[in-house]
C-alpha cells in the first residue's frame, strides 16, 4: 500500500497539518445541527481526508464501511428519458458522488438523483442521527444550471440531509451555493508542514531522511501534501540511502508537458504546431484534464520566457482557459493558445533579433 494511504489520518485527532480546522470540525460534529459545508482548497491539501475523518467522527466506524456502486438512474427530462450513470460510494450514513461526471447532464443528476436522495430520510436503526450526509465532489465542475438547481435542494431538505461539498476553487461555485454553506478553506500546507509530515512518515518507516532532502521534496511537490508523500515514496523505491541532492522524478505527464513547452520555444512553425497538436492529443487521451495541461504549459513557458512577454502570454492563457470552459472540444482551445503563443513569440524574436 502506498504511504499516502497508509499514513492517512483516520480520525480528526490524528490530523497533523490542519489541526485547528480539525478541532473546529470536531466541535461541529458534536453538535446536532451541523450546517452544510463547503471545503475548498487546492488539491493535495487534505480536504478529502478531513471529510472522511469528519464522517467518522459523526457516525463512528460504520462510516468507513462503504460500498462502491455504479448506478444508473432513469431521469425523465420532459421530452425524453435520460439514463444517467454514476459511481457512488455509500455507507449507511452517507453517499458520496461526483455529479460532474455526468457531463452536460449534470443538471439532471442534481435535479433528480440528489433530490431523491435528500428527500428520503435515512432509516437509522440505531437512531443516533436523524440525517444523512451527501458528499459531492468537484462542485466547481458543475455547470451553472446544476448549481442553480442545487441551491433549492439545499434549503428544502436541510433537515434530513446535510451536504458536504468539496471543490478546488470556490470562485467557480456560485454565490448562492456558497452563501448556503459554511465555507471551510483548506489551504495548501506550507513547506514546513510538509517536511513535518514527511519526517513523521520517515520515522514510522524507520528511514533516515536528510532534512535538506525533505525540504527539496516539499518544494518540488508544489505544496501538495499528497504529491510530496508520493514523491517521497517514489524516491524511496528509486534509491534508499537518501542523499540530499538526489534527483526527484517528475510526474510522467509533467515531463511530457515540459517537452511540449521546449518544442514550442525552439521553433514556431506550422509544422511544429502540428506536432504539438499530436502531443496535446496524446495528453488528452491519457486522461489529463485540459485545464491542467494549459496551466502547466503556461508554467513551463513562463519559466523560459522573457519578462516583457510574460504578462501578455499569461493574459492569453487565461483568455483561452476561460473559453475552454465555455466550449467543449478542449483541443481547439489548447491549440489556439499554442498558435497564439507561437505568433507572439515569433514576432518578438524577429523584432528583437531581426
Amino acid at each position, binding site marked *: 500500500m502506498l504511504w499516502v494511504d497508509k499514513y492517512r489520518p483516520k480520525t480528526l485527532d490524528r490530523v497533523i497539518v490542519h489541526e485547528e480546522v480539525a478541532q473546529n470540525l470536531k466541535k461541529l460534529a458534536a453538535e446536532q445541527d451541523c450546517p452544510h459545508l463547503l471545503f475548498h482548497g487546492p488539491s493535495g491539501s487534505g480536504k478529502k481526508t478531513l471529510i472522511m475523518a469528519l464522517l467518522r467522527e459523526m457516525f463512528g466506524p*460504520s462510516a468507513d464501511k462503504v460500498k462502491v456502486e455504479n*448506478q444508473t438512474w432513469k431521469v425523465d427530462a420532459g421530452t425524453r428519458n435520460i439514463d444517467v450513470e454514476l459511481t457512488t460510494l455509500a455507507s449507511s450514513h452517507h453517499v458520496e458522488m461526483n455529479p460532474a461526471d455526468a457531463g452536460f447532464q449534470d443538471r439532471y443528476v442534481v435535479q433528480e438523483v440528489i433530490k431523491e436522495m435528500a428527500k428520503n430520510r435515512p432509516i437509522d436503526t440505531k437512531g443516533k442521527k436523524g440525517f444523512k450526509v451527501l458528499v459531492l465532489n468537484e462542485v466547481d465542475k458543475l455547470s451553472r444550471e446544476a448549481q442553480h438547481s442545487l441551491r433549492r435542494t439545499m434549503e428544502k431538505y436541510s433537515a434530513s440531509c446535510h451536504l458536504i461539498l468539496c471543490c478546488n476553487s470556490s470562485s467557480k461555485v456560485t454565490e448562492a451555493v456558497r452563501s448556503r454553506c459554511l465555507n471551510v478553506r483548506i489551504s495548501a500546507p506550507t513547506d514546513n508542514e510538509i517536511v513535518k509530515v514527511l519526517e513523521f512518515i520517515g520515522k514510522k518507516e524507520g528511514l533516515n531522511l536528510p532534512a535538506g532532502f525533505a525540504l527539496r521534496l516539499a518544494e518540488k511537490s508544489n505544496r501538495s501534501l499528497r504529491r510530496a508523500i508520493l514523491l517521497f515514496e517514489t524516491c524511496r523505491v528509486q534509491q534508499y540511502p537518501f542523499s540530499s541532492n538526489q534527483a526527484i522524478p517528475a510526474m510522467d505527464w509533467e515531463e511530457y508537458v515540459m517537452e511540449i513547452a521546449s518544442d514550442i520555444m525552439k521553433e514556431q512553425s506550422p509544422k511544429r504546431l502540428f506536432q504539438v497538436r499530436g502531443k496535446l492529443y496524446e495528453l488528452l487521451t491519457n486522461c489529463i484534464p485540459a485545464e491542467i495541461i494549459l496551466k502547466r504549459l503556461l508554467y513551463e513557458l513562463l519559466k523560459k520566457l522573457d519578462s516583457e512577454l510574460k504578462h501578455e502570454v499569461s493574459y492569453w492563457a487565461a483568455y483561452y482557459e476561460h473559453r475552454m470552459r465555455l466550449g467543449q472540444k478542449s483541443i481547439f482551445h489548447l491549440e489556439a493558445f499554442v498558435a497564439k503563443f507561437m505568433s507572439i513569440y515569433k514576432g518578438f524574436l524577429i523584432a528583437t533579433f531581426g
Partner: protein
Amino acid sequence: MKQHDKGAGNGNTPKPKAVEKPSSAVPQSDNLVVGGQDSSGRRRTSKYFADKEKKEVEGLPEKRKSETADLRASPAKKVNKNKNEDDEDFVLSTTKKVSADVTPSKKLKSGSGRAVAKKSEELDESGEDDIKEMKSNSKASERGRGGRTGKTAPGGRKKMVIDDESDEDEPDDKTSQSVKPGGRGRGGRGSSTASTGGRGRGSGGRGGFMNFGERKDPPHKGEKEIPEGASDCLAGFTFVISGTLDSLEREEAEDLIKRHGGRVTGSVSKKTNFLLCDEDIEGQKSRKAKELGTAFLTEDGLLDMIRKSNKSNTTKSEELKKPVDKVLPSPKKTYPSSAAKNQVGGLPSKSTVAKGSGTGITSAKTKSQATEQSLLPWTEKYRPKVPNDIVGNQSLVKQLHDWLLNWNDQFLNSGSKSKGKKQNDSGAKKAVLLSGTPGIGKTTSAKLVSQMLGFKAVEVNASDNRGKADSKIEKGIGGSTANSIQVLVTNEAISNKIDRSEHQKTVLIMDEVDGISAGDRGGVSDLIANIKTSKIPIICICNDRYSQKLKSLVNHCLLLSFRKPTKQQMAKRLLHIANAEGLQVNEIALEELAERVNGDMRMALNQLQYMSLSMSVIKYDDIRQRLQGSSKDEDISPFTAVDKLFGFNSGKLRMDERIDLSMSDPDLVPLLIQENYINYRPSSVGKDDNGLKRMSSIARAAESIADGDIFNVQIRRYRQWQLSQSSVLSSCIIPAALLHGQRETLEQGERNFNRFGGWLGKNSTMGKNYRLLEDMHVHLLASRDSYLGRSNLRLDYFTPLVKHLTEPLRVLPKDEAVEKVVEFMDSYSISQEDFDTAVELSKFKGRPTPMDGIQPAVKAALTKAYNKGSSSRVIRTADMVTLPGVKKVLRKRVAAMLEPVEESLAEDNGEPLEENENSDAEDLEDRETAEEKLQSDLADLKLKGIEVQVDLKGSGSSSAGKASSGRGRGRSRGSSDSAEKKVGGGRGSGSASKRKR
C-alpha cells in the same frame, strides 16, 4: 477584334523569314505577343503557307505591322516594366526560339521544340491529304477549325454531329466563311472536349493536390501583373502545366487559363495544345510533349496571349471590317494557323459575327417553323419518340424492353399453377422498378417501350388516389383508382382474354411510387398484392430506391436504376434540339448547362426554352449567369467542400457559396478544417519571408475555430440553432478565408490530401480511457484506503503506482518481483485489466513505455500468479470474472463488494443481497482478526476455491443474469462455507445492483 487577331496571326505566319534576322528591338514585343506558342505554331504554318498560299500571305504584312505596333504600345511596355533582369535572360531565349534557326544547341528547349515542330509539320502535310489520319497533335487547333467548318458552315444542316470527321469540307460561300470564326472556338473546343473533357475537369479541379512532391515557390512570385483578357480568349486550347513557372503558382496559372476558357489537363496527350513550362525539367511531360510535338509555351507567352485578347477587345470595332475582306477570298485551308490565332484572341467577337451573318439565315428559317408549334413546351415537343432517342441508359431501356417482351410468355402462357414457382426465378419478377433522379427519362422510357411493344399504357401517378382498394363493392369500380387498378390487374377479360392477338395488351405504369403513402393508406402493400396476382405487367417508377417506404416493394420487383446521362450525351441532344429551334448555342455552353442542371434533361430543356425567348444566341456566360442561382443542390462530400473552401480561388467565392459549402455537413466540415488548416500556405499573405504572417494568420484562424466550438456548445446544449450561421462562419469560413492557398505537407511521407478530422477518433479514445480509468478508480475506492478523485488518480497517483507495479518486475528476481507486485495489486484491489490500463495510460508517444525492459517471461509469471491468487481475493468486482465466451457483459454493472469479511462469515448464508444492506457497526480490530482467520481458511481451501471458480465460469457463460448467479451459488453450496460465501458475495453484489435498477 477577332479580325485583328487573325491579322496578327497572319501577319506573323509569314514571318519566319522576316523574324529570322534576330532583331533586337522588335523581338521583345513580338515574343511578348505570341510567346512560345507562336514559335511552333508559326513555324509550322509557315511552311504550310509558303507551300500553299504565298499570295495570301504576302498581302498581309502591312496589317501585321499596324497591329504589332499597336500591341507594342502598351502591353509590351507594361511587361517590360514588370520584368526584372533575371527575366531578360529568359526572354532572350524565347526570342531566339522565335527567331528561327539561331542556336538549336544552346537552349535545349528551343532546339528540341523546333525539331518537333518540324516533324509535326511533315506529319501535317501528309495528314492534309489523308483526312482520316489527321491526328497529329500540333494540329489540334487547325483541326478544330476545320471541324467546325464542317459543322457550322453548312448553316442549314439540322443534324449535326459533335465530333466531325469532315475535316476537308471546304467553305465555299461567304456565309459559311463568316460563320466559321464563330464556330471555330466551338469546334476546336468540341473536338477536345469530347474526349478530354471529363478528364480535364477532373484533374483540373484536383490539380492542387495531385502533386505529391514539394514544389518550389516560383522565383518571382507575385511580381508580374496578371492581365485581364477577354473571357474566352483561350477557348479551345488544352494546356498542361509542368514544373515551376516564373511568377505564377501552378494553381494561379490553372485558374488563369480556366478563367479565359482554356482547359488544363494533368498529362500530355494528343489533344494537348500547349505545354506550359518555364524551365525544361526533362520530366515525363516534356518528353511526351516533344514526342507528340506539342507546342511549348512560357508563362510570359501565356500572359501575352491573354493580354493580346484584351488589346484586341478595344480595337475591335475598327478591325471588324478588315478581316472580312481578307478572309473572303481565301479558301479555308489556307488559314490553319490563323484559325488558331483567332481562337487566342478573337473569340469574343465570334458571336457578333455569328449573329451578323450566321443566324441571319438559320434562325430566320427556323423561326418560322418554330412559331408553328411553339405552343408545346419543349419538354413535350422533344420528348423522345423512339427508345433510341432516350439520352443515356440505353442498356437499361433494352433490359426493360426485354422484360416486357417476355412478360407474357413467362407469366401467362405457362401453366397458372407454376406461377408461384416462377416468381422465384432470378430473372423473372412480375414487376419492374425504375429508379433515378428526376428528369432523366424514366417515365418516358417506360412509356416508349410499352408503346413500341404495342402495350397500352395505363398510367397511375401521384395525382390519383392510390390507397388501399376498398373492399366494399358498393363504391363500384369507379369509386377509386385503386379499385380500378385491382380490376384492371386481375381481370383478364380486360387485359388479354379477349383475343390476345388482336386486342391491345395493357401495361400498368405506377408512377412516383415513393410518394405513395402520404395520403394513400396501405398503398404499397396493396400494390404488392396486386403484383402477385397481376395478369398484366406493372412498371413502378420512383426517385429514391432506398426509401424506407419501398423496402417491401423492392423484393418484388426487377430493379433498374437509371443513371444520369453524361454531360456530353446531354449536350449532344440539347444541341440537336437547339438547332431544330434555330438557336445558336455552342457546345461548351450546352455542356455547362448539362452540368449545371445535374443531369436533369427536363430542367435543361426548360431553361433552354426560357432563354430562347430572350435571345437567339446563347453563350457560355449567359448560361453561367442564368443558372448560377438556380443550379440544383448537389451533394458534396465534406472533403470536396473543404477543398473548395481552402482552394486557391476560394477568395472569389461568394459568401453564400461559402456558407453552402460549410453547411453541406456542419459537423464534419469544421472538423476537417480544424485538422487541416495548418497545412495551407495562405496565398493572401503575399511575401512572407520568415513565416510570421502565416503564423499570425494561423493564430487567428485557431482562435476563430475555438469560437466555433463555443458557438457549437450554445447550439447543442441550449438549442440556439439560430447561431448556426455564426458557428459556420467562425469555424469554417474565417479560417478558410485566412489560410486558403496551396496545401503543403508537414510530415515526411504524408500524402498531400486533407486528412480526416482527428478529433473524432481521439475523442473516442479519450472516452474509452476515461472509462477504463473510472473502472480502476472504482477498484481503488473499493479498497477503502483512498478517497481520491479520478483526476487526482491520474495526475498524482499514476506515476508512483506504475512505478510500484513495474519497477520490481524490472529489477528484482522473477519470483520475488511477482510476489511483490501481486501483493501490491491486491492491496489496492487492482485487477489485471487495471494493470494494463495503468500501463496504457502512462504511455506517451515518443517516450519509453513503462513496460520496456520487462521480460515477457516475467509478465507471464505475473499473470499466472495473479490468476492463481484471484480465488482468494476478498474484494471482488463482478467484472473481474472474465468469461471465456462472453465478453464483458457485466462491464457496466460494476459493483464492488465492500462488506467486511467477518460480517459475511458471521451472517452470510447464501443471502448476499441482505449483505449489502447490512449496516451493523463493527470495530476495525475485529475485522482485522477476521481477515486473518479467513486467510488461513482460504489457504486450506484453496483447491476447493479453484473448483468454485470453475463452476462460476461455467454458469456465467451460459447467461449473465440472475439465474446464473443463482445457479452458481447453488452449485457452490456443496463446497465449504467460506468458498460459498465468497462466490455468493461476488455474484450477489452484481445481481443486487442489477435488481436495484
